[in-house]
């Protein structure tokens, strides 16, 4: 009982090689529980304070609190929604799960008790760990519409989005849904988290429009030290995100931690090199953005590849996301304010593709840990990965667009011009970020 079965199916489909004996794991593993307790704390740490500092440092000081407020409120609201119904949409409660959404047997976690297990960890722990993913994904979108969206509209949009986009896609991939059935590989959320968030971000940037003055007026980060602090926290927390996704304290978790670290480092250095070559000087904003690219890109692959492949993945991530950012901003002139799409979206897509290559076990030093499901070749795996990318991309794009249009009708998406000029902190929250004398 207890959402255990559906997890099993995922594990079976996606990463069966990791848990050779999970079929008999009906006893609690204290060790795995210890690690997932920690990992849950680490993933929460990624959103608050990690991501919220990363983002908040990048906006102008008149909007700093609005960003912190959005991230914080999403942490609360998404948690409650996940508890009430999001979890059960994604993971359901019964042994057998449908291809598109779960069942409603775990509304309010009704089918879980203190002794229930999911695999060999407490069922409520699995649900809480997943809750932190359901928190950070909508929080990532915040970067796209920062400095101009109404707080109320943001809450309404995010709530609907969690239930109508995140939860179903999560079911497809991790809840025993149709992508899981195909042996689609996404260890820690390249598609579930990064593609969905980034596509929603792109759509939101397009629907809500550019900030006043973009791109002419300087809109400098108001506190780079805050952004770099948040970046460090993201890196640390990401160990919980990726290595926690092993749901165990074992070699797989350790390898996930290692490849995560290496890809982050490689992504950072690649971005730094691009900047140094192209602009003449390396910047700290550049290197931390490369880090996020490296981390986002390794995420889907972190359970399937080895460290040498992670080096390649990280280098590709840093380079490609660098040029994607320039392209979106300078060519397309889309004000995805904190560059959510070119970093998380491009990275998420790239990683979800590359895992299809580097999971292969016969690539010498670049070998990985094996294909997903019944896939028997790089070609087959890459095809499945492509299907997954296209499906999550287009589903997210369509539903996000509809939701934004709807919210615009109901509440209006954007503050007035004067309010935007004055800044959201005073206008929406009657507070100021700093009063330093």
């Amino acid at each position, binding site marked *: 009982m207890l959402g255990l079965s559906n997890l099993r199916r995922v594990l079976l489909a996606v990463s069966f090689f990791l848990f050779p004996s999970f079929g008999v794991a009906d006893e609690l593993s204290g060790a795995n529980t210890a690690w997932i307790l920690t990992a849950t704390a680490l993933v929460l740490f990624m959103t608050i304070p990690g991501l919220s500092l990363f983002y908040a440092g990048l906006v102008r000081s008149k909007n700093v609190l609005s960003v912190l407020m959005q991230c914080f409120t999403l942490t609360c609201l998404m948690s409650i929604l996940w508890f009430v119904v999001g979890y059960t949409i994604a993971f359901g409660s019964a042994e057998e799960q449908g291809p598109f959404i779960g069942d409603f047997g775990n509304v309010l976690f009704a089918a879980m008790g203190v002794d229930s297990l999911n695999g060999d960890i407490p069922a409520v722990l699995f649900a809480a760990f997943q809750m932190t993913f359901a928190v950070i994904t909508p929080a990532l979108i915040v970067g796209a519409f920062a400095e101009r969206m109404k707080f109320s509209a943001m809450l309404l949009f995010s709530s609907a989005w969690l239930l109508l986009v995140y939860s179903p896609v999560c079911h497809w991939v991790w809840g025993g849904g149709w992508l899981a059935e195909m042996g689609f590989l996404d260890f820690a959320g390249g598609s579930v988290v990064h593609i969905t968030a980034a596509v929603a971000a792109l759509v939101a940037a397009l629907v809500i429009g550019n900030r006043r003055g973009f791109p002419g007026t*300087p*809109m*400098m980060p108001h506190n780079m030290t805050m952004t770099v602090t948040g970046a460090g926290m993201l890196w640390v927390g990401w160990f919980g995100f990726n290595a926690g996704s092993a749901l165990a304290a074992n070699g797989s978790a350790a390898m996930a931690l290692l490849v995560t670290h290496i890809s982050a480092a490689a992504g950072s250095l690649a971005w730094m090199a691009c900047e140094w070559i192209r602009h003449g000087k390396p*910047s700290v*904003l550049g290197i931390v953005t490369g880090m996020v690219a490296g981390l986002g890109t390794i995420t889907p692959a972190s359970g399937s590849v080895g460290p040498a492949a992670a080096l390649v993945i990280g280098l590709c991530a840093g380079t490609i996301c660098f040029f994607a950012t*320039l392209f979106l*901003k300078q060519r397309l002139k889309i004000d995805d304010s904190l*560059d959510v799409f070119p970093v998380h979206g491009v990275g998420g897509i790239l990683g979800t593709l590359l895992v299809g290559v580097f999971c292969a076990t016969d690539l010498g030093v670049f070998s990985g840990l094996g294909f997903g499901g019944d896939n028997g070749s790089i070609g087959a795996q890459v095809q499945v990965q492509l299907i997954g990318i296209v499906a999550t991309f287009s589903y997210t794009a369509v539903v996000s667009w509809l939701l934004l249009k709807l919210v615009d009708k109901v509440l209006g998406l954007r503050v007035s011009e004067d309010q935007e000029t004055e800044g959201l902190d005073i206008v929406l929250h009657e507070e100021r970020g700093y009063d330093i004398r």
Partner: protein
Amino acid sequence: MKMITAIIKPFKLDDVREALTDLGITGMTLEEVKGFGRQKGHTELYRGAEYVIDFVPKFKLQVAVNNNLVDVVCEAIAKAANTTKIGDGKIFVSELEQVIRIRTGEQGEAAL
């Protein structure tokens, strides 16, 4: 009395302050300002968004003095703040009609 207002490079403050105290000046008021002039600012680059910052950080120092001190004070400032590089700044002199020391109510030169 005159008000002497000097725009100087921030790292020259200590030199100027010393030059003034050497002259027996015991009071002055300092502000952080940004200057626009012949001295070029710098470029900042954030993820491909390039901003040219024209305004460079300067200090603005104001000293109220008796008329007879104006020339020496100006000279002293000009000497201490000089680096012979563009952007060394300017000194402005203007008339001051009245000065009052708040604590004692003293007025005019006695209040300086």
